[in-house]
């Protein structure tokens, strides 16, 4: 208990999407609506909100469960307090990344996006196939996404946490 960070909730409210977390009155409709919770009890929206409000920063940011949100917005639509829990989860993950905790699946996606501008590379082979089906050619990336990832500091954030 001596590891609690009472200011954790304010760090979350400062992140885009985390603004409304303190409105939660713990009714639990988020948990009851959650398709992930239905299968995996590790992931419990109401519990995650409580943990944040109680200041359990380390335990939340370093957990595996924060990466399990499927982004379905069922909780957000039903919340009577307008907490927007899907966005709260995004705020929590944004903060986790700043603190050096990122799920490897995401680091991998960032590398691909920086290289090809999309999650899938469309090479000459694909373009030939597209042409055979009458689809227009997909141009190679002009490096826009790479520039943005570098410009916002995301690239450095990921690279500095490697290894």
């Amino acid at each position, binding site marked *: 208990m001596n590891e609690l960070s009472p200011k954790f909730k304010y760090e979350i409210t400062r992140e885009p999407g985390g603004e409304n977390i303190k409105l939660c009155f713990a009714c639990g409709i988020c948990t009851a609506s959650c*398709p992930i919770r239905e299968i995996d009890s590790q992931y419990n929206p109401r519990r995650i909100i409580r943990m944040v409000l109680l200041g359990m920063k380390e335990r939340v940011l370093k957990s595996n469960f924060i990466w399990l949100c499927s982004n379905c917005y069922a909780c957000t639509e039903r919340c009577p307090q307008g907490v927007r829990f899907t966005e709260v989860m995004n705020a929590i993950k944004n903060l986790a990344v700043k603190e050096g905790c990122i799920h490897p699946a995401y680091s991998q996606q960032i590398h691909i996006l920086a290289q090809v*501008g999309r999650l899938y590379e469309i090479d000459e082979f694909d373009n030939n196939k597209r042409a055979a089906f009458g689809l227009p050619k997909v141009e190679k990336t002009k490096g826009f996404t790479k520039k943005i990832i570098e410009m916002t500091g*995301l690239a450095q954030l990921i690279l500095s946490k490697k290894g």
Partner: protein
Amino acid sequence: MKYALYTGCTVLGRSRNYEMAARAVAKIFNIEFIDLADFECCGFPIKSIHYRTFLVMGARNVLAAEKRGLDICTLCSACTSSLTEVNKHLIEHFDEKTRIVATLRKQGIEYRMSRNISIKHFTKILYEDIGTNEIEKLIERRLSNLNVASHYGCHYLKPTDIYNNPEDPEDPQSLDELIRITGANSIRYNEKMRCCGAGVLAINEDLAYAIARLKLKELSENSTDAMVLMCPFCSVMYDDNQKKMEQRFQETYNIPVLYYPQLLGLALGIDEKSLGLRMNRVSTKALIEKIKR
């Protein structure tokens, strides 16, 4: 009607059938698609880890269309919600939009602001802008012996507060109406509004498949001819991975999964090849034979 066609990553990488069917259907309704070379990823995968990057990635795509005075037509529901959210944010925060344009310019990425544009999913364009009355006039073959399960997915509907004319996310109607217009029966089923699970596929496969299974299992038990959807992520779960799930759970589903433009295309009399129906992973052969009967 003219739109910049925003395919996004997954349609280009995995769903050529969807792109083909959408283009073929658009042609019939005189919807002109313009392909822009500078569209890249919408930013959706980045939102949960770095909001700023998500915002600028989305903004750049919006600006690329805005520069040419074109509204955007999306095919993927995740792209739809991402670009809609970013576009709404830019319209409501003009100062931030100006700052993003300026920072992009410093990187040598030049976009001039023009009139605000709108982002619309292809299915929504068919439903709202073409309309079921107009569509009905062009139906050549009524698919009246088909029982079809509509799958809306999440981001086509939610979050409702980013969309103009949002539907009730608990009881949406647009896709069901669009299915009925083809003559097919849109069935009622318990798992209709369940998320496909694709959002966690890269993080936890077991979990993602356990979620996707619930819908396939119910549909396989009530003699459904096909599932109809409009998001490539959902299709990856239900079509691309259906065989894998059958093996994993030792169950048989055998549910063909069609993109809505493929179903509509059949009713409009477009040939199967142009609709990419041979590229669907779960065979659509029996389904097509049933239609011809």
